[in-house]
């Protein structure tokens, strides 16, 4: 129960960050990527703000023997920079550059009643599901 409530709270805080920073606005995101046009560098500050917090806290947190509501930490173990990582990141970057939507802001925007966001999310879920069934099969 506690871990579900804490997850809900973390989701709300993340979503508020997406709204306050305006990352929820695809136009703002595309203007950030438009380095050879009308560049708007604002979103670099989102990364600076987020990393200022996680950069300091992550090291301290993982020194704990366990998290507060779970018996152990669930951290990624892969360390090799392989082809799937780079190809996947390149596909993601291409998709992000076409719409200005990445998963967090797009999911938050679901509550705003925008048809384009519904189509984006449906297609994103289809892409994820396709990957899962191809991997199993």
């Amino acid at each position, binding site marked *: 129960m506690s871990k579900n409530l*804490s997850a*809900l*709270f*973390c*989701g*709300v*805080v*993340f979503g*508020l*960050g997406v*709204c306050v*920073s*305006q990352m*929820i*606005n*695809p*136009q*703002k995101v595309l203007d950030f990527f*438009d380095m*050879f046009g009308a560049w708007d560098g*604002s979103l670099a*500050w*989102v990364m600076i*703000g*987020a*990393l200022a*917090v*996680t950069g300091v806290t992550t090291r301290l947190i*993982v020194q704990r023997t366990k998290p*507060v509501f779970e018996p152990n930490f*669930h*951290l*990624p173990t892969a360390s090799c920079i392989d082809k*799937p990582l780079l*190809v*996947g*990141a390149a*596909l993601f*970057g291409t*998709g*992000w*550059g*076409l*719409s*200005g939507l*990445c*998963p967090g802001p797009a999911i*938050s925007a679901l*509550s705003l009643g925008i*048809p*384009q966001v519904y189509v*984006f999310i449906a*297609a*994103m879920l289809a*892409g*994820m*599901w396709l*990957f*899962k*069934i191809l991997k199993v099969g």
Partner: protein
Amino acid sequence: MTSPLFSQVFKNMENFTPYSALIGGVLIGSSAALLLVLNGRIAGISGITREILPPWNNAVTWRLCFLAGLIVAPLLYQLFGGHIVVQLNNPSLWLMAVSGLLVGYGTSLGSGCTSGHSVCGLARLSARSFAATLTFMFTAVLTVYIARHVIHLGV
């Protein structure tokens, strides 16, 4: 008096919002730090979303709670007087479908999106996340360059 170089680099100065971006970033970082210390989990939105899809082999409930929080946040923000703008210059549903498919499949193959790789992974000094962040930022810049200035897609 502004120099030509200054106005060249800061063409879009009227839209520059560093303070709200910084505060928003601190909120996003705080969410990731809290999820790690409380639940021992990485706040990677694409991974959290993928694991609620079948076939299920991991816990689903906390992930649904996190996503529910993400979805209600804009409503809370508006309730407390916040103003949200969502602007899509090219509203084509086909464009959204292609973009969504690439984002969904790409983040799955590449083990993460902006949150997992750039907010959490870089903080853990992960070489994989560093490589992934460089790759998706570079391809996003390239895509916007081609879409806006070469094929004039109207995005």
